[in-house]
């Protein structure tokens, strides 16, 4: 009897150790991949990473001191439009799902949002091309922003719905019991109670689309100079990386690596800020 017990406990311990090492190994692998990418980008791009990379326009190949200032600013403008479009639309739809709609309708909308989320980004790009670029007869910052904004909507809806649902009902009741309307309650009690989750969710959402390339190919196109306005073609970091990487020139390749590093650093810093916003929740509650 006791020998059997010992055997079982031995077997359990071995399984435990094996599982621990396998899962640990793969966790390590995941982390390593991120650092490898960062290191690789830095290694190849470091030569082009200088102050002028951030301040200068692209120069013809062979000329020294070319930069990507226009692509950095262009990406910023495109992401700004995307946020201004995607966040309010997604937020308000999320408010509707969490606070107003019936269960069946919410279920259907949630399903549709998941489908929209699964639409390949290149298809979104073609859609924005048909809806914005065609009628306006030109590629533009605006079209790029709209394409990325559409991509932000599904996650914005889900984030809002989930964080609002997590707000305890007793808070809604407290506000309603004082004679507040439902709308007042949502905007002065429920949403502020969820604000940290909402802000960080939206930032992660932004970080997710910041690296999108395909939808921009048909919409913002690209530009070797400063974009002449919101309704004109614009450079962006992902498209610039793509164009430089497929070019036959060694110095362009190096710049593409540098741009890749800048883009990744940007996305990571948005990510880290979002996580800090989330963990800040505990701090304010305790203060």
């Amino acid at each position, binding site marked *: 009897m006791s020998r059997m017990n010992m055997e079982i406990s031995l077997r359990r311990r071995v399984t435990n150790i094996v599982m621990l090492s396998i899962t640990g190994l793969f966790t390590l692998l995941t982390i390593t991949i991120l650092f490898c990418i960062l290191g690789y980008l830095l290694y190849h791009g470091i030569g082009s990473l200088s102050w002028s990379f951030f301040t200068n326009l692209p120069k013809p190949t062979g000329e020294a001191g070319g930069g990507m200032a226009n692509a950095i600013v262009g990406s910023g403008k495109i992401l700004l439009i995307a946020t201004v479009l995607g966040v309010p639309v997604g937020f308000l739809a999320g408010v509707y799902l969490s606070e107003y709609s019936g269960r069946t309708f919410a279920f259907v909308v949630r399903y549709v949002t998941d489908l929209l989320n699964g639409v390949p980004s290149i298809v979104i790009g073609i859609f924005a091309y048909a809806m914005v670029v065609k009628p306006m007869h030109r590629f533009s910052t605006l079209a790029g922003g709209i394409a990325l904004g559409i991509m932000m909507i599904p996650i914005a809806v889900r984030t809002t719905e989930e964080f609002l649902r997590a707000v305890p009902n007793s808070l809604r009741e407290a506000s309603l019991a004082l004679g507040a309307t439902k709308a007042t309650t949502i905007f002065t009690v429920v949403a502020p109670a969820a604000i940290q989750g909402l802000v960080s969710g939206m930032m992660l959402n932004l970080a997710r689309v910041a690296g999108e390339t395909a939808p921009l190919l048909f919409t913002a196109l690209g530009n070797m100079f400063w974009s002449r306005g919101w309704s004109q073609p614009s450079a962006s970091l992902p498209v610039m990386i793509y164009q430089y990487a497929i070019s036959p020139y060694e110095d362009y390749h190096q710049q593409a690596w540098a741009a890749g590093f800048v883009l990744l650093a940007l996305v990571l810093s948005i990510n880290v800020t979002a996580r800090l916003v989330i963990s800040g929740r505990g701090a304010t509650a305790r*203060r």
Partner: protein
Amino acid sequence: MAIQPPHVEDTSAMPAGGINAPQTSVIPKLRTRDLNFYYGSFQALHNIGIDIASRKITAFIGPSGCGKSTFLRTMNRMNETVRGTRYDGQILLDGEDIRKMDVTGVRRRVGMVFQKSNPFPKTIFENVAYGLRINGAKKATIAETVQRSLERAALWTEIKDKLHKPASALSGGQQQRLCIARALAVEPEVLLLDEPCSALDPVATLKIEELLFQIKETTTIVIVTHNMQQAARLADHTGFFLMGKLIEFNDTRAIFQNPKKKETEDYVTGRFG
């Protein structure tokens, strides 16, 4: 004129809500007639007919799950926010059917302190100021009203130095008193309190009871309590609920010293099993 006992609702002998003029000098603030309440198919309240006297303290007692909270929450239409609930019958506030009134107006006039304290995740000050702000109080008067409300809820001296700290930093009992202050700030005509003292120590409980005595001058108070001494100390009238029925409603002294129903007697003497 001597104050006479309020209308005694005898649900078995009398069609509830049938005879609705109590032989009494007190003016009813809230009345219900043939009130039946349902959570989906489950009927939580049966034929409640009651007159709640203006500017008096009315207490409701009864075992857990008998429908006290449900009853309280129908009177400010709070149960309407719960999916699948409905009621029939009438609830009258100053003679007017609350179902026909604007819901925010009803809740503004009939304030509520919930069974579980529920301060907003805002500062102490903003918690109390909230009701004033949404009801359009003048900015200049807000700070003063906030202080007065906190004083009345016996919380001011403890927190006057941390008004702008989050309410979550308060103890459970302090949070409950904050909720009372928040309800008082908008000066409701009726204040519904659902076991407001269950998280309080005897000193704070006493302070709240003193407060209720004070505001009785201007406010109709309805309180649910599990503490029978508290009902006996505080209330002018007491009602006993059992399984969704109002078994007996009378002067508090009569309920505790001379109950007419066997169930009431068993409950107040602790023989209820």
